[in-house]
Structure formats: structure tokens, C-alpha cells
């Protein structure tokens, strides 16, 4: 393991751990972990794109997280709005976006880990959709 990759794995590993807790806590509401995983995966992919373009200042990563939260609110209000705008869904996907922010900060420190982050981001998005629409 390269120096610093342990921290990235710690940051990435926290996302499925929290999602697993959601699955246990809400056995009849798979959409809750679905939103968390989707928010985390989409934010991670957005962060990877930003790091690819230019290694960002740490506070720019915070901006990436907030942009992801805003985009999540917009999609929740439009394409993913079913019965109503659900603040619980927004909260869950924003928690996921925040957790992904830790991983993006580590990616920005270790750009060689972008491939790992990209793969994990894609897996999280796929898992998020599967749970959200289960």
C-alpha cells in the first residue's frame, strides 16, 4: 500500500459502512440508503473530474461538496420528485455527498488514487440506483 492510501481507504470505506447501517435501520425503506449511496457516488465522480482538471485547493473540495448538494436538491425537486420534495431524501443524499468529500480530499492529495476513486464512485452510483428503485 502506498503512503497515504490507507487514509483514502478509510474515507472510502466509511461510505458503505454507513450505508450498511442504513440498510439495517430501515429495512422497509431501501430508498434511504439508495439516496445516501447515490449522493456519495455522484459526488465522488464529480470530485474525480475536478481533481483530473486541476489538483484543487482543499477549500475547493468543500465547494465541490456544496455544488453536489445543490445539484442533488435540484434533481430531487425535478426528475426524482415522486409524491413530493422529500427533505429526508435530500438529507440522506447530502450526507453521502459529505462523506464523499473526505475521500475527494484524500484523492486530491494522492492523484494516483483517482482510478480507485472512479471505480468506487461508479459502484456507489449503481448501488444507489439499485437501492433507490428496489
Amino acid at each position: 500500500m502506498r503512503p497515504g492510501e490507507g487514509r483514502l481507504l478509510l474515507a472510502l470505506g466509511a461510505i458503505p459502512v454507513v450505508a450498511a447501517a442504513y440498510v439495517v435501520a430501515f429495512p422497509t425503506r431501501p430508498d434511504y440508503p439508495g439516496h445516501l449511496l447515490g449522493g456519495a457516488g455522484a459526488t465522488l465522480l464529480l470530485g474525480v473530474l475536478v481533481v483530473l482538471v486541476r489538483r484543487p485547493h482543499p477549500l475547493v473540495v468543500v465547494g465541490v461538496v456544496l455544488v453536489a448538494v445543490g445539484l442533488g436538491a435540484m434533481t430531487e425537486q425535478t426528475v426524482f420528485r415522486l409524491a413530493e420534495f422529500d427533505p429526508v431524501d435530500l438529507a440522506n443524499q447530502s450526507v453521502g455527498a459529505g462523506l464523499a468529500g473526505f475521500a475527494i480530499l484524500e484523492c486530491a492529495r494522492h492523484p494516483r488514487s483517482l482510478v480507485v476513486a472512479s471505480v468506487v464512485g461508479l459502484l456507489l452510483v449503481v448501488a444507489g440506483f439499485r437501492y433507490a428503485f428496489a
Partner: protein
Amino acid sequence: MRSPEPSDWSQQSDGSQRSRGSQQSGSSQRPRSSHGSVRLALALVAATVVVFAGVGAWSAWARSSIPMAIDAEVTSLEVRTEKHPGVDDVWLVGLDGETHHLDAAVARRLPVGARVSKDRFARAMTVDGDRVELAPSDDAGAMTWISAGTAAVALGLAGALGIRRPAR
């Protein structure tokens, strides 16, 4: 060949990178302030998680109507289905024309035209003179402890990732 060690935020604002030697022989102020930026970013990201974990818990609790003060007439009642009818239905109750998303267990006790009153954070309401007990839903209870746990994870991550690596 190893690329420059990026264990510190040694990149300049113009995108160039300082060599490890320049960090050691140059001013020690730059790496220290950069690490401060990392810690600030970690704190802000953790705060984002904590805030939205709180929003989730509060929203789930609000559907029990327990946090609300009510003195109104039920003006509408609508049930909208989502992906799992009967499981994740959305019960929208109009109170003096203002729509609230409430738990099904609460909304079922509120017929259109009924007069409803309750104090903020009271665990009972009066519906046309009858006392109705209130309790948080299973979702609200679970959301409370999972939000607390998620906030703890975020704060723990921020602490762990904010520790400066020892120089090698």
C-alpha cells in the same frame, strides 16, 4: 520513478508543485498554513454531514407532528403513493390551507373539517375535543440514532484525516 510526494498541500496557486527540498529549506510557513486549509476543509465537510444528518432526523420527527404547535382546521387530506404503495405513501394534511407531510398514523386521525389543537412538543393533540396520543414513527426513531452515528463517523473521519503525517 516516484512522482513528487503529495503528502502535504504543497501545490502553488498557479498549479506548480514545490519540491520536497524547497519545503524543508524554504519558509516553513507555507506547509503549516496549507495543513490548516486541509483541517478547515475537513471541518467544513464534517459540518455538512452533521447538518444534513440533523435535517434528516428533524424531518422524520416533524412528520409525527410532535414538534409542531397546532390550532387549525383540517382543510384537506391527500395520500400520494411512491414506489411501494402502502409502505412509503406520503400523507399530506392541510391545516388551515397549509400542507404538511405527516405520518400515516397521525394523518388517519385527522378527518377533513376536524378542529385540531396541540402545544409544541406535546405528545398528544386534541381532535374535535378527543385526545389523540402521538408517538414518533419507527423511521423517526431509527433516523435519530443513525444520524447521531453518522455525525460521529464524520467527526471521527475529520479527526483521523486531519492528523499530520510524520515526516519520513
